[in-house]
């Protein structure tokens, strides 16, 4: 595919740049958490039970007494401060003392020098349990006689978000057609390729403890560790090792692992490392929320939406984690990017004994988008419109009101632009018409095969090649940028120009592999007119930079980019002031910073090298270091009614998927995905394209293959032989396109992309499959079971597969 050229007046922004961390990553020199070694380090190995829900009667460690491999057994009794933690509700114990609520729970940690020996010894701990009934169905969690997972809270309800707009009952009465539909989405694992790892090192001097690990949000980890140890924030230092993928997944789990390592390190006064194997990573870490999504929609003959009643139920699993934030995004985005007068939404998230769920790329949007975008296609069929026409008719325009009553102004609402572009570049309409004609037809098949179910009768023989059908589908979304009314939204960035004109840069946000360091370096390089390789991005360390909140919600470019730009512009102002004096100018408005020089536009012969100017600035005693700050504007939300300005700005995206389905065998191949995103100004083009390729691929995995199934709360797919994520062979071609909508926030209007890319893909693929097969599938993933049996084969026992 021809590379898309972004037209702009920038020198570095929007042009390909080599990653800040690229060299160390291609040479194997980059240090990930497990690549750090410390003298005298010990290892921690977890002790779990086999239960999903049980009271702990007694734990007997006597067989480990005097064992030469064990330096310490760490339990809840060793915790000086908070015994339970959590971002919203403190419901998750560092070590369980009296109760087990999910199979990932840990009761103690063995510490010693030899991991292999320690792992064997875990078998010798005798845990006396009184098993409790297991609640594994979120639909039963709110029944009166349901067992309570955390009895202190007196309910299994974690959060309920209502949203009321207009009057749905009246709306339903006034419309021509009504559709009611239920959709479900599955539990999935982040599947970062690097499992969790952290080392805690006893501190020196005033520093009590230093932690280096695969940590997504170092400031959150610091807060948790400090509260567990009972220390001040400035007594705990968190250093982020190179992170081997996160996607939202190395937050809560890593905070708890860091706390466990820290407790042991301080008790034994030696470095303690915890490194998870894949199986325990999958068993203990949190996942994406499964949802049950009930929609009732009323519309007119022409397809205009009139009323929508939405009831979403999310399974939060055993701990609340980020559930309240995740599901809040769902309530904002549940209606999709469509104008509807009457909306009545309820989103609930509940406790069960299942693996707990929290932040994962997309964060509460892929689930409702799968539902609403499937529904829009169903509406289109009812009113004989194309998927394009139905969205064009109802989609948000400049100044539209969202379900929460927010008027979309202050930024360019590019929904129709992205939709039109996606439809054009994919030749959507003509393909859609062609594919629909052949859809689901089984010419050449035996009569017995042509029935409702795709599954074959016992003696049927088919030639699978007779049953290839093509399909094309689209999905459209709007997405609130950054945290929104979820939290305080501000970020810092430190910039310091050295006497030779090279630059140090560090922001309070964290590099999770997404390329943030490179993006921020590009911003600084653009402003100073220097090449990005003159910039060194510093190690992420909580002692060196202000707390900038978590690196989540696709907020790094918007918030950290804004902070970096502010810092650089402040320093540039000082340099301009100096040059105005040196060159005796009236003002600095004609000075251009470009190609390592500063040039006077009106008189091109007047120029000075960047490094030379810096030298002079140092000689004059000018301060060339600063911390830039960027705070988002105020937003608000009324909890009772769901009214408010949820986010201060939005991005828009449209994806079209083209698939080939074997309607005889249920196999699906993804041929093409066209992705058109308005992420605002594109700063790091290679990184942006990478976000699209990667996000879509994860989205395709969500649509077709990925699923963690639980049985009584226990996980079956605990390694990559059973939890299948996309490989290099699963998707043929991805075509990214960027529309740069006008935006006043961030660095030149650079907004969010990481999550928008993922949230649409499953919905687009589902719609494409529907065209190919002539059947609509309501449950993710649309794997072979779903396709042929229209139900999921839940495991009868956990012993299937090779690794458990």
């Amino acid at each position, binding site marked *: 595919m021809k590379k898309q050229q972004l037209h702009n007046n920038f020198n570095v922004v929007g042009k*390909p740049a080599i990653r800040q961390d690229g060299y160390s*990553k291609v040479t194997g020199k980059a240090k990930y958490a497990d690549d750090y070694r410390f003298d005298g380090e010990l290892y921690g190995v977890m002790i779990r039970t086999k239960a999903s829900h049980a009271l702990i009667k007694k734990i007997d460690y006597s067989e480990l007494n005097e064992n030469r491999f064990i330096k310490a057994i760490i339990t809840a009794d060793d915790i000086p401060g908070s015994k339970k933690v959590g971002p919203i509700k403190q419901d998750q114990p560092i070590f369980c003392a009296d109760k087990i609520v999910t199979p990932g729970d840990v009761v103690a940690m063995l510490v010693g020098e030899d991991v292999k020996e320690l792992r064997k010894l875990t078998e010798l701990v005798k845990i006396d349990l009184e098993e409790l009934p297991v609640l594994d169905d979120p639909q039963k969690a709110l029944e009166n006689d349901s067992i309570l997972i955390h009895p202190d809270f007196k309910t299994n309800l974690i959060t309920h978000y209502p949203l009321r707009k207009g009057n749905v009952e009246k709306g339903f009465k006034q419309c021509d057609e009504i559709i009611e539909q239920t959709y479900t989405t599955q539990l999935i694992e982040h599947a970062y390729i690097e499992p969790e790892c952290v080392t805690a090192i006893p501190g020196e001097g005033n520093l009590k403890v230093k932690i280096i690990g695969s940590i997504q949000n170092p400031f959150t980890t610091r807060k948790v560790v400090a509260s567990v140890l009972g220390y001040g924030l400035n007594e705990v230092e968190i250093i982020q090792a190179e992170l*081997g993928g996160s996607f939202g997944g190395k937050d809560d789990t890593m905070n708890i692992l860091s706390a466990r390592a820290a407790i042991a390190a301080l008790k034994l006064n030696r470095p303690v490392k915890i490194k998870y194997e894949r199986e325990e990573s999958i068993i203990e870490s949190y996942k994406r929320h499964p949802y049950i999504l009930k929609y009732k929609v009323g519309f007119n003959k022409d397809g205009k939406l009139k009323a929508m009643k939405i009831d979403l139920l999310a399974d939060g699993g055993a701990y609340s984690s980020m559930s309240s934030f995740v599901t809040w995004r769902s309530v904002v985005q549940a209606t999709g990017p469509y104008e509807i007068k009457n909306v009545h939404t309820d989103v609930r998230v509940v406790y069960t004994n299942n693996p707990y769920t929290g932040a994962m790329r997309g964060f509460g949007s892929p689930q409702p988008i799968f539902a609403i975008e499937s529904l829009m296609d169903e509406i289109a069929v009812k009113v004989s419109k194309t998927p394009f026409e139905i969205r064009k008719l109802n989609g948000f325009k400049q100044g539209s009101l969202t379900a929460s009553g927010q008027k979309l102004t202050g930024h360019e609402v590019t929904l129709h632009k992205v939709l039109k572009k996606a439809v054009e570049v994919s030749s959507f309409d003509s393909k859609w018409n062609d594919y629909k004609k052949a859809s689901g037809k089984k010419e050449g098949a035996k009569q017995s095969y042509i029935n409702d179910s795709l599954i074959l009768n016992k003696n049927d023989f088919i030639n699978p090649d007779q049953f290839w059908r093509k399909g094309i589908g689209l999905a459209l979304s709007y997405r609130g940028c950054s945290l929104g009314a979820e939290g305080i939204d501000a970020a810092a960035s430190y910039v310091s120009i050295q006497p030779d004109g090279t630059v140090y840069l560090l922001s309070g946000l964290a590099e999770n592999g997404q390329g943030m360091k490179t993006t921020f370096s590009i911003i600084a390089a653009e402003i100073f007119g220097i090449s990005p390789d003159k910039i060194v991005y510093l190690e992420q360390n909580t002692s060196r930079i202000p707390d900038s909140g978590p690196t989540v919600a696709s907020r790094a470019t918007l918030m950290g980019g804004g902070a970096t730009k502010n810092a650089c512009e402040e320093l540039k102002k000082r340099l301009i002031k100096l040059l105005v004096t040196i060159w005796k100018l009236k003002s600095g408005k004609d000075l251009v910073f470009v190609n390592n020089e500063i040039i006077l536009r009106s008189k091109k012969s007047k120029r000075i090298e960047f490094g030379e100017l810096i030298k002079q600035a140092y000689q004059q005693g000018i301060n060339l270091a600063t911390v830039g700050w960027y705070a988002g504007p105020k937003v608000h939300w009324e909890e009772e009614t769901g009214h408010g300005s949820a986010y201060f700005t939005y991005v828009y995206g449209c994806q079209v998927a083209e698939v080939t389905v074997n309607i005889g065998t249920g196999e699906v191949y993804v041929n093409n995905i066209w992705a058109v995103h308005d992420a605002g100004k594109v700063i790091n083009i290679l990184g942006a394209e990478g976000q699209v390729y990667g996000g879509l691929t994860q989205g395709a995995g969500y649509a077709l293959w990925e699923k963690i199934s639980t049985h009584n709360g226990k996980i079956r797919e605990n390694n990559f032989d059973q939890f299948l*994520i996309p490989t290099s062979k699963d998707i043929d071609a991805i075509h990214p396109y960027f529309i740069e909508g006008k935006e006043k926030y961030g660095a030149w209007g650079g907004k969010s992309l990481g999550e928008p890319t993922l949230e649409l893909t499953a919905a687009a693929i589902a719609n494409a499959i529907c065209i190919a097969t002539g059947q609509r599938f309501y449950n993710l993933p649309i794997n072979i079971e779903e396709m042929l049996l229209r139900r999921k084969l839940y495991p009868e026992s956990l012993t299937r597969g090779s690794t458990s």
Partner: protein
Amino acid sequence: MKINFTLNSQNVSIEIEPNLRLLDLLRDRFNLTGTKEGCSIGECGACTVIMNSKAVNSCLILAGQCNGAEIITIEGMESDGKLHPLQENFLKSGAIQCGFCTPGMIMSAYALLIEKKNPTDEEIKEAIAGNLCRCTGYKQIIDAVSQSAKEIKINT
């Protein structure tokens, strides 16, 4: 037991326990931490190294099997301070995000280029099909390998 083998063009000899994995030999004894561990069961490819010109999962190979073998790891790809074309092109194509899969990817691609001078995109996809990457969606990796094949051909 004692084994002798070639590691990144150097002859080495070391005393090992018979149950030691090649992965641990590299990471723990030789401090070559560029080779990563992602699954320990031969599914993710993060631990891929070259053994006698073939890509292998070092988590599934016993160190003892390496006696007399020639092993190349990611640390052996840069020569005289110059990056291998694969490394160069991974950088230029944006084929890296978190980078955890990168060493294994490069080694699988290297094994392919030893075997085939002109790999098609399909052959490249096949060669790295055992290397999971959760970040990149593979596209820029495939571009990087394909570009490297072209450059190596011109230069040899």
